[in-house]
């Protein structure tokens, strides 16, 4: 079957390229700062999965909400949060989104309707349905996106949530980012049925599998899912077939998979290379243009890293603030 010419403008393609590259460079820098001891604790990088958040954000509108797991840096950048504030939170500084009190896994932006950043596997799933509940309660047509992984999809609360979301026809898109490894346990070793998108069948929730490495496929699936939700037809499940290039967290040596496996995905399915190829072959950009974009992004990321290094640690009095309103 001949590939259909994608319905996408040069401007859009360049935007997706820029957004994905921003996430990748940001994450590479975060990895570097972690190695330097500037970032502590757990730090889960999103490298490889960039097409998912960028493709889905393309179909959001003002007021839509998103909530995700601890692998959250990409989601924050994609919904418009400031790389400086995110990086400064990673370094635990005063100018971070949570004033240094949340860290990599616990960041929020009320302004951008980003509800975390959740360190407990699958806890964000009912929370995402609760955001959708609020939309329905208020009678607006906003949609919430609840992102979770293949590992989380085995948690009981996911199915409690599926049941209620379908029962109450809540406008929530469940986005399963299936990167095939729950920390070190492959999907084959943890899941009785591999097709996670079919797990809504028991609840009457439609679901589909999407090539999560193809930003345009993600965008198209997202458009379909959000239209379904906005039309009042209840929740929708998108299983994004994706891959993380790095370990589960910075401290994961990733011995559970071969170098060859990772290398093969990088060479054949990389989401950024894919768009780059489209830009070049479609005549939308030449090497020089892309180099310029790369340079520009590197500058933004370096500036964020500098900001996150220069920002002071929180004042000691902050220990006692924000416990109660």
């Amino acid at each position, binding site marked *: 079957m001949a590939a259909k010419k994608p319905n996408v403008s040069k401007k859009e393609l360049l935007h997706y390229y820029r957004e994905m590259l921003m996430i990748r460079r940001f994450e590479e820098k975060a990895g570097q700062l972690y190695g330097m001891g500037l970032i502590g604790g757990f730090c889960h990088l999103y490298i490889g999965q960039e097409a998912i958040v960028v493709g889905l954000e393309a179909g959001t509108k003002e007021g839509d909400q998103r909530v995700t797991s601890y692998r959250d840096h990409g989601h924050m950048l994609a919904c418009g949060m400031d790389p400086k504030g995110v990086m400064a939170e990673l370094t635990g500084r005063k100018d971070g989104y949570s004033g240094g009190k949340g860290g990599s896994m616990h960041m929020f932006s009320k302004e951008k309707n980003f509800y*975390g950043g959740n360190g*407990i596997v699958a806890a964000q799933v*009912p*929370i995402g349905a609760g*955001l959708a509940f609020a939309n329905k309660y208020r009678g607006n047509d906003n949609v919430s996106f609840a992102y979770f992984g293949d590992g989380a999809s085995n948690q009981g609360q996911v199915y*409690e*949530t599926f049941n209620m979301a379908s029962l109450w026809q809540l406008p929530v898109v469940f986005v399963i980012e299936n990167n095939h490894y729950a920390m070190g346990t492959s999907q084959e070793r943890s899941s009785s049925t591999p097709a996670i998108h079919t797990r809504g069948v028991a609840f009457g929730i439609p679901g589909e599998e999407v090539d999560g490495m193809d930003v345009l496929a993600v965008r198209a699936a997202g458009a379909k899912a959000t239209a379904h939700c906005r039309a009042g037809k209840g929740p929708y499940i998108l299983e994004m077939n994706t891959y993380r290039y790095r370990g589960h967290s910075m401290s994961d040596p990733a011995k559970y998979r071969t170098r060859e496996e990772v290398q093969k995905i990088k060479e054949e399915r990389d989401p950024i290379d894919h768009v780059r190829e489209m830009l070049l072959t479609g005549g939308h950009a030449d090497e020089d243009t892309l180099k310029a974009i790369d340079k520009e992004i590197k500058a933004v990321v370096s500036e964020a890293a500098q900001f996150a290094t220069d920002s002071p640690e929180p004042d000691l009095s902050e220990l006692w603030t924000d416990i*109660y309103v």
Partner: protein
Amino acid sequence: MAIQILMPALSPTMEEGTLAKWLVSVGDTVSSGDILAEIETDKATMEFEAVEEGVIGQLVVPEGTEGVKVNAVIAVLLEDGEDASAIEVTAPVVETPTKAPAPIPAVAAPPVAVVIPVEDDLPEGTTFKSMTVREALREAMSEEMRANENVFLMGEEVAEYQGAYKISQGMLDEFGAKRVIDTPITEHGFTGLAVGAAFAGLNPIVEFMTFNFALQAMDHIINSAAKTLYMSGGQLNCPIVFRGANGAAARVAAQHSHDFSAWYAQIPGLKVLSPYSAADAKGLLKSAIRDQNPVVFLENEMLYGRSFDVPEIDDYTVPIGKAKIWREGTDVTIVSFSIGMQYALEAADKLAEEGISAEVIDLRTLRPMDTEAIIKSVKKTNRCVTVEGGFPVASIGNHISAVLMEQAFDYLDAPVINCTGKDVPMPYAANLEKLALITTDEVIAAVKSVTYR
């Protein structure tokens, strides 16, 4: 021999009920399984079925009679061949120690008349109305829901069933299914969902049928609701109320009889309230619903049907974090909350007869705790006994002891004694259950010990 039909116990805590309606008349032949009557408990109206066959010989208790004690004779059934002359009992509603063992109430009958001490800040001339704790909770929720469109109630059986404990009775009618929401039995899920709705700016009231089931939802109460404000650097608050019955009910054994006060009181980010009286139930629940923080509101099933005077004031609220002195005294300070107050007050009454003057403090709020009120009292009495239904290890009383040792050591004339439930899972057997619960006598003994009497 004619068979006596007795008033049945239709719930673990039922001691009496209303014989709402007879569905049989004298002379009717009934077989086992036939519905004899409708009986109204404080929770629900239940149908009462015949167990044995026969002819109705007499309806001893007329329909509409309230306050019929469990095990009172309500009708007489004639067996094959008997006539009315076989009827021996014609006595009206009396308590009868007959065949079936009466359910032993797990807690002693309420102390005589409960008189509410007047709050300092009530306007002069305030009138009071007698109200059960159950009604007070319902009024609090209804008033707040009328005032704020963003407040809604969700939980198991809160809507169409009218509340498992009838707290939300009638609320579905007034507020509709959008705001009074029956959930599936899925505590983990609906608690997380409600937390998400609160993050989005709504004000959910989550009813746990009992707090025993909130164990399934603990992660969202602690990790999602209590910690997010801090983790977000003050950006994202969670204005939610988790409420329901906490502590021992009656004869429901270990998994349904557990006081979680100390668990929740340990968590920064939560406010934890546990009222005793109906006035405080109402005033504190209203404050809890308005509070912009997550509030755990611990009720007690044994108190739901208890009546107290509630001020007839528009929009009556009680401040969170303020203890109340129920009776003033000079010899010892008894600190308690929730159902524990019943033992504390009973003990104080009896101690007064022996010339020991006890000051009784109702904490009402467990977090933030009004330790100032306790310390102030202990500086006067120099002795302290704490009373609670929970387990003894790492209890609320342990915390109070530590606070007193750290902040009022020089004022103590005796070690603080913590009266608690026993350090065992709650047994089912009536005699063992009684032994596991705190008693008034234990409080009295503790007071005598600290006063060296």
